[in-house]
C-alpha cells in the first residue's frame, strides 16, 4: 500500500473518531428530535408524524423540509432501532465520506497529492463538519452531494447519467439546491476544463435547469409555498428596515432643501441590491469561517468557526498563492465559493449559514494550498493545533452544554418522561415555553405508538404542536383556576406560568426540575390547579 493511501486512511479514521467521540453530544434540538421521531414513524409504519404515507415534503417549525434527511435517518432507525445511534449514524458516515470525496476532488483538481491530503485533513478536523456529522441535517448531505458532483464532473471517466442522478438527488435535499445547481453546473461544464462536447454540455445544463424549475414548480403547488419562499429565501425584498430607511433618509434630504429628484437618485430601490450584495459578501467574512460560525449552537459549537482559529494562517497563504497564479482552473475555485453562497444575497437580515457550509471543502482546498507553502515544522504544528482545538471542544463539553441550555436542552429528558408517564393516567398541562417545541421530545423519549399520535393535518406551515392525546400545551393566554373535585390534572409549569398563578392560588409543588445551569425551570403541580 502506498504511503499516501496509508496517510489518507489515518486521516479518515481520525475524522471518524472525532465524529463518534462523545457520541451523545450535541443533544438533539427540537427540530432534530422531530426528524428523529419522524424517522421512527416512517421506519415503523411508513407514515410521518402526521400520518401521511411516504411523503416527499415534511413540516418543521421554520419551513418545509425536503425528504432525503428524514428518510436517511429513518433507514438508520430501521436498522439500529429507535435510539440516537440509528438517527445519527448515516450522518456520521456521510461526514466521514466527505473526507474521502474532498480528498479525491482535491487530487483530481490540483494533481497534487500533498494538497489533496491536507484538504482531507482540513475537512476531517473542521469543527462544523464534525458537528454536523453528528446530527440529522440537510447541510452535511447537500455538501457531500455537491462535492461529489464536483468531483464526478471533473474526473477523467465520468458517466453523465450518474451525475444527472446525483443532481436529482440534491434537489430532494434542500431548497438551496434549486437555486445553486444551475449556476454550479453552468460553471462546471462551461468554465472548468472537461472532456464533454458542447452538445453534451448544453444538454446537461438544460437538464439541470429543468430539474430546478420542475422542483420549484412542484413545490409551488403546496398551499403555503409562496409564503415559504418569501419568508425563508427572499426576505431581502420584504425587509422593512431597508424600505423605511430609504424613505426616511430621502425625507430628511427633502426637508433640508435637496431636490426630490436628487433624493430619488441617491436613495432608491438599488439600496436593496447593494445591501443584498454586501450581505452576500458578509457571509464570506473571516469571522464566520475562523471566529464564530453560529452563536445559537444549532449548526456548530458556539465558540468555533468553520475551521480552527489557527487555520486562518494556511488559508491566507493559500489564498495569496491562488492570487499569484495566472487565471487557471485552480483560481476558478474562488468563483465557486461565490456561486454556492449567492442565494444569501436574497436573504436579509438573517444569515444563510447553511450555504456557507457548502463552501467549506473548497476552503479546505485553499488551506491545503497554504499548508504546502509552509515550512515542514510549522505545517505540522498548525495541523496539531487544528486537531487540538477541535478535539478540546468535543471533549470538554460542559461549557457548550451550558451555552446551548435553551437550544439543545438535555435537561428536558426527565420532564418529557414524567409528562408521558402521568399522561397515561390523567390529563397533563405543559407550559409551551419550557422549550421551543416539547412535543417531539415527549414522543421521542417515550415508548409511544406512532398510530396513537397521528395528527391528520395536511401540510401546515411552520407547525408547532399544541396538544398530544391527554397532554395540552399551556400558552401565555391560558388562565388557571382551582380544580373542581371531578377534575383531575397535573401541570408542568414554566417560570412564566408558575409566577402567574403563584400570586393568587395555593400551589402544591410535587417536583422541581432544573436546567443545565442549575436554575429551577419547571414545577410539577399536583391535582389542585386546572387550566381552561
Amino acid at each position, binding site marked *: 500500500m502506498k504511503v499516501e493511501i496509508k496517510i489518507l486512511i489515518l486521516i479518515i479514521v481520525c475524522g471518524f473518531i472525532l465524529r463518534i467521540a462523545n457520541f451523545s453530544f450535541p443533544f438533539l434540538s427540537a427540530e432534530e428530535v422531530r426528524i428523529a421521531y419522524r424517522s421512527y414513524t416512517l421506519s415503523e409504519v411508513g407514515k410521518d408524524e402526521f400520518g401521511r404515507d411516504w411523503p416527499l415534503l415534511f413540516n418543521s417549525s421554520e419551513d418545509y423540509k425536503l425528504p432525503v434527511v428524514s428518510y436517511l435517518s429513518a433507514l438508520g432507525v430501521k436498522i439500529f432501532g429507535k435510539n440516537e445511534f440509528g438517527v445519527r449514524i448515516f450522518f456520521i458516515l456521510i461526514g466521514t465520506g466527505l473526507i474521502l470525496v474532498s480528498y479525491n476532488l482535491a487530487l483530481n483538481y490540483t494533481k497534487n497529492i500533498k494538497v489533496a491530503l491536507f484538504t482531507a485533513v482540513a475537512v476531517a478536523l473542521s469543527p462544523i463538519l464534525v458537528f454536523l456529522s453528528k446530527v440529522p441535517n440537510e447541510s452535511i448531505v447537500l455538501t457531500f452531494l455537491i462535492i461529489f458532483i464536483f468531483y464526478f464532473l471533473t474526473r477523467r471517466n465520468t458517466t453523465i447519467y450518474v451525475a444527472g442522478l446525483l443532481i436529482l438527488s440534491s434537489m430532494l435535499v434542500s431548497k438551496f439546491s434549486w437555486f445553486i445547481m444551475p449556476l454550479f453546473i453552468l460553471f462546471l461544464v462551461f468554465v472548468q476544463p472537461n472532456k464533454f462536447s458542447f452538445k453534451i454540455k448544453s444538454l446537461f445544463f438544460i437538464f439541470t435547469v429543468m430539474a430546478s424549475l420542475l422542483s420549484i414548480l412542484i413545490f409551488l403547488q403546496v398551499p403555503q409555498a409562496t409564503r415559504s419562499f418569501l419568508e425563508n429565501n427572499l426576505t431581502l425584498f420584504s425587509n422593512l428596515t431597508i424600505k423605511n*430607511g430609504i424613505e426616511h433618509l430621502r425625507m430628511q434630504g427633502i426637508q433640508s432643501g435637496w431636490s426630490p429628484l436628487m433624493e430619488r437618485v441617491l436613495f432608491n430601490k438599488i439600496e436593496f441590491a447593494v445591501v443584498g450584495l454586501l450581505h452576500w459578501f458578509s457571509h464570506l467574512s473571516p469571522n464566520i469561517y475562523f471566529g464564530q460560525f453560529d452563536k445559537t449552537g444549532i449548526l456548530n459549537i458556539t465558540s468555533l468557526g468553520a475551521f480552527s482559529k489557527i487555520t486562518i494562517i494556511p488559508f491566507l497563504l493559500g489564498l*495569496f498563492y491562488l492570487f499569484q497564479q495566472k487565471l487557471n482552473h485552480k483560481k476558478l475555485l474562488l468563483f465557486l465559493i461565490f456561486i454556492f453562497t449567492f442565494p444569501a444575497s436574497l436573504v436579509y437580515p438573517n444569515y444563510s449559514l447553511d450555504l456557507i457550509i457548502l463552501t467549506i471543502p473548497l476552503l479546505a482546498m485553499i488551506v491545503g494550498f497554504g499548508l504546502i507553502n509552509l515550512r515542514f515544522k510549522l505545517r505540522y504544528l498548525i495541523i496539531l493545533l487544528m486537531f487540538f482545538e477541535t478535539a478540546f471542544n468535543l471533549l470538554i463539553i460542559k461549557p457548550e452544554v451550558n451555552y446551548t441550555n435553551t437550544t439543545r436542552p438535555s435537561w428536558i429528558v426527565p420532564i418529557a418522561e414524567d409528562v408521558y408517564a402521568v399522561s397515561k393516567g390523567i390529563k397533563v398541562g405543559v407550559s409551551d415555553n419550557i422549550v421551543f417545541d416539547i412535543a417531539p421530545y415527549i414522543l421521542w423519549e417515550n415508548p409511544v405508538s406512532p398510530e396513537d399520535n397521528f395528527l391528520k393535518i395536511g401540510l401546515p406551515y411552520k407547525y408547532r404542536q399544541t396538544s398530544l392525546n391527554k397532554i395540552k400545551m399551556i400558552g401565555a393566554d391560558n388562565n388557571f383556576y382551582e380544580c373542581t373535585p371531578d377534575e383531575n390534572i397535573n401541570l408542568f409549569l414554566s417560570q412564566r406560568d408558575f409566577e402567574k398563578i403563584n400570586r393568587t392560588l395555593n400551589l402544591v409543588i410535587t417536583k422541581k426540575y432544573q436546567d443545565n445551569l442549575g436554575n429551577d425551570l419547571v414545577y410539577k403541580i399536583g391535582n389542585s390547579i386546572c387550566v381552561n
Partner: protein
Amino acid sequence: MRKLILKSPIVLLLMIIVLAGYLRFYRLEDYPIQLNHDEVSQLYDAISIATTGKDIYGNFLPTIFESVHDFKSPFYTYITALFYLIFGGGELTVRLPGAFFSTLIIMAIYFFSWRLFKNQIMALLASLMAAIVPFELFFGRKSFENVAGIFFMLLGFTALLKYFENKKSVWVYLGVIILSIAMYTYFSHAIIIPLLFISFIFIFKDEISWTDSNFIKAIIFWIILILPLVFLVITNPDARYRSETVFITQDVNLGERIGLTQTGNFLLDNVVKLKVITDYGFNRYLNQFDPLYIFSFGLDFTNQGPVGMGPLFLVQLPFLIFGLIYITRQNNIIREKRFILTWVILGMIPSGLTFESFSPHRSIMVFTALNIISAAGLFFVFKYLNNLPQKRIFYISIITIFLLFTFNFVYFIHMYTVNFPNEKFQHLHYPFEQVARFMWSEHQNYDRIVFDPLYGEVAPVIGTAAHYYLAYFGNYPPAKMQQEYRRGEKTREVLFDKFSIRKIDWIEDQNLKNTLIVGTIWSIPIKEVDENKIIKTFYYFDGKPAFYAVSLK
C-alpha cells in the same frame, strides 16, 4: 496622461492636497453641527492648559487628562492649546489640528505609497482616494488624535524605507523620532506601533545589516524616547484604569459566557475561561473585516440598519479586491506587500480587543491601508484598460469609474450633512450648546441653576461633559473653574459657580426658590408643571422637544 503625471507629480499632489484641504476646512465650524463632548472637553482643557498650565481639575501639565473620567491621551489637548495661542478660543480651534493633520496625511500617504510600491501614479491615486474617502473626511473634521498619529506613522515608516534606499543616517533617526511621536498621540498606537515596527524589522531584515551601527543606535534611541511612555502606561493608575475600562472583558456578553464556563475543576475552569476570552476576542477581531461594516454602516451615520455609510466607498470594493490580487502578484515588492498586509492584520487588534462591537476610530490605520490597496486596484484596472486596443473602451470605463466615484461622494456628502445630524444628533450632545448659552443668559436672574443632563428621544442617557459645555460656552475662566469645581452630595452632582449639574428630584426640587431648573421629560414631569414656569423649550435637531427650562421664583 502618464507623461503628464510623471512630469509634474508634485503639482498634482499639491492639487490633491488643496482639494483635501477644501473638503476638510470648508464650513468646518458647521459640520459636525455641534462640538461633541470630547471636543468641548479637549478645547476647554486646552484653554486651561494654555492659560494656567493646569487642566480644569488643577493637575499641572498632566500626562493624561481626566476629562470626563475617560482619561484622554494628552497629545490632542496640547496641540489644541498651541492652536489656541494662535487662533484664540473659538469652536473652530479644536477642529483645526484634526483637519490640519488630515490634510497633511495626503502628503504622507503619497510618499509612503511611493516608497512602498515604487510607483508614482499609484501613490497619487492613493492620495487622491485619501482626499475624498468617507472615513478620512469624517475623522478629519472632528477633533481626533488618531489621525495625527497615523500621519506620523506614515511619515516614520516612509523615512525608514528611505533609509533602506540611501543608507543616510538622518532618515533612520528621523524615522524613529517620528514613530515615537506617533506612539504618544493615541493609546492604542503605543501598542500597535512597536508591534508594527518589530514586524517591519523582521520583514525587511535582509535590508538591515546588524553591523550597521546607525540602525542599532537608532533603535536604542527609539527605546529611550519611548521609555517615558512605557513608564506612564505601567505606573500611571489612570492609564491602567482607561485600558481596563475599554478592554474586551468589560463586554457584558463575554461576562455572561465566562459565567457559564464553570466545570467545577479549578484548573480546567481557568483554562476554559482563558479560551473563552481568546475565542471572543478573536471573533471580534475578525468581525472588523465584515464587508457590511466597511462599506455599509461602519461610520454609524444612521439608525437605518444597513442603509448608512461605511468608512470606504462601496465603489472601492472591487478595486480593493483587484488591489489585493495586484499587489500579491508583484514580485518586485515582496517585502513591501508583506508589510502593508501586516499593517492591516495588526491594525485591527485594538478594535478586536475593546468592549465595543465595532470601533471605527480604532481602525483608522487599517482603513488607511485598505484605501492604499484599493488605489493599487484602481491603478491595476487603469493599466489593464490602457493596454486594450480599443481606446473607446478605455475612455468609457474611465468615465464610468469617475461617475461611480462622484455618485458615492455625493451620497456621502448627503449622509454627512443631512442624515448624520438628523439621525445621530444625540451622539453630538445636541442641543447642549443652546442649553449652556441660555443658562448663562439667565445667570444673573437666579441664585442657583440646576441642570440634569439626562436626555434622549427614545431612551434616557446621561450626557457627559455638561460642566465643560457650561464652562466653555460661558467663557468661564479656567483658573476660576479649577477653584470652583467640586463634587456635590446629591446623585451625580458636580458644582461650580451657581451651577449644580445633577439628577433632578422633582418632588423635592420643585420647592426650591429663585432657581432655574433645566431638564428633560426623563427628570421633570413636564405635564404637571405650571406652563408659566416653563420659560424656554430646547429642541433636538429633528425638531422634537428636548430640554425645558423651569423658573422657580
